[in-house]
């Protein structure tokens, strides 16, 4: 049975790009590099810390979402986050999926 974890995400203020909370308080562009949290308390603490990055004008609207840890990597539970991590399904040449 695969583990469900929480991941922090937001949009970068300057260009609106989707970013994920990485290690050591960084923000990363790839879901594969995101930090994940097994426990709710840990995740909430990371979300609270993200408020500083909002004030510092790095990101906007941070929130947590659920994902599964699979052998292939982190897989969001909701379609919305799958699309957010990759790009529009109808334009595979655009968004993060095009850079992979």
């Amino acid at each position, binding site marked *: 049975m695969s583990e469900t974890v929480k991941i922090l995400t937001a949009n970068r203020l300057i*260009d*609106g790009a989707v970013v994920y909370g990485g290690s050591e308080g960084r923000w990363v562009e790839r879901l594969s590099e995101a930090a994940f949290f097994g426990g709710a308390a840990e995740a909430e603490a990371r979300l609270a810390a993200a408020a500083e990055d909002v*004030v510092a004008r790095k990101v*906007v609207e941070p929130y947590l979402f659920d994902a599964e840890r699979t052998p292939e990597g982190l897989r969001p539970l909701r379609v919305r986050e799958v699309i957010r991590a990759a*790009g*529009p*399904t*109808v*334009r595979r040449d*655009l968004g993060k999926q095009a850079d992979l």
Partner: protein
Amino acid sequence: MYRYDEFDRIFVAERVEQFRHQVERRLAGELTEEEFRPLRLMNGLYLQLHAYMLRVAVPYGTLSSRQMRALAHIARVYDKGYGHFTTRQNLQYNWPALGDVPNILGELASVEMHCLQTSGNCIRNVTSDQFAGVAADEIEDPRVYCEIIRQWSTLHPEFSFLPRKFKIAVTGAPNDRAAIKLHDIGIILSRLPNGETGFDVYVGGGQGRTPMIAHLIRAGVPKRELLAYLEAILRTYNELGRRDNLFKARIKILVHQLGIDKFRELVDIEYAGLDKTALVEVAEDEIARIKAYFAPPPYKTLPAQSESFARDLESDAVFAAWVRTNVRDHKVPGYAIVNISLKPTGGIPGDASAEQMDVVADLGERYSFDEIRVTHEQNLVLPSVERTDLKAVWDVLVRHDLATPNLGLVSDIIACPGLDYCNLANARSIPLAQDISRRFADMERAHNIGELKIKISGCINACGHHHVGHIGILGVDKKGTEFYQVTLGGSADEDAAVGDIIGPAFTEERIVDAVETIVDIYLALRAAPEETFLETYRRVGVDPFKEKLYAAH
């Protein structure tokens, strides 16, 4: 079309500077996101799923070729080489960076365009009939009054922080191509007994969570009084509209709660009590000034029939098929209205590449007096093309995948961006449009089916106008899976109606089959080939469709 005078140019330049400062203050931390959000929304800048989205206003759907070229240029330089034409006649860019937006606005201002009030709780782009000025059934060109309302509503000091968004549409013809009964205020031009043009004003229409058809609040408003009367309606709404619940804040809810008679009474009291010295009259000289911009272009005197056009039709059956579906009669003999479909088989409805925009700009300049229209069904129009030029125009359109002969047919689908782009969506809409389009790719079959408007929304906000689709489809999220709910019999024209929910939602795998079954049911039930889907539906009702559809699935 309207051209900015020195005042308009100064205004839009000042507006660009204002937004530049607002972005600077935001980036410097002097404005929080909470304070900045309504300011950026009033400038059409959303934060969407992958990036910001910038919505450019195309006033009443009218563009010059120079403006279209600027839109193409911006798509290339600041975005990813394409744009999306919307169900409110506007254009959306899906990937602008916040830091670039002031420069984008500057480029737009240089061609007399802007993004003002394309979002936010203010009066939005005033939309109109895409055939305004060239349709035979028109009383008067409604765009004159659209422009008057546009200016009056621009940064209106009293009405910039309404309970919710406010959408106005104006049409000048009895055949309503502007969906005026689905707007917060819808206006139809009419003939007053004294021969002058007056306005029949409708209020309280809208889609979204609670779709409603607008009510007639006052018929025959004289020109002079139009803005004062709108002021009375807006003030009543601004004061009484709900501010506690986002989903109950539109004027349609207020009108529904009070009833149209009580609402009218309140507006009339407000109108009667308006301070006459401050009354905002629509001045005759200003109407005349704006009307001059909408004077007919220098049409040639042409015969109604054209031999060379007849030869073109005979020599090329594919061209003839396109003429049959996409070309409409013009009020001036020898001219025609060309509809450019942005719905190629399997394509993304309403999207156009920068190259396609340039092609349309060139065609507009060369063949259509430099004018292009955007329709609320996400297509484009060249309003005035000589019949003898149609073949040449079509040849160019074919080379750029702009000649799909499906106007108003089953594959001319209206779809919102949906979960592929939009933060608010629950389901994807574009892949469904693509699948349906591919299922009905055979143009002869589509032609045999006849007029059939399929409209798809990815969430209850109904930007795809699904409530008024002949077949409407609403994408929903059931426990993380996308499902599609079908409505039938909606209509946005003068006989406006909200579609009937037909039954339980369909899965992504089954929905296209379901649509095909509905079409087959119609074909079996229609009284004659000329009876359209909507006419058949209105004759037989929802039951035969419901029974047969759910029996089959």
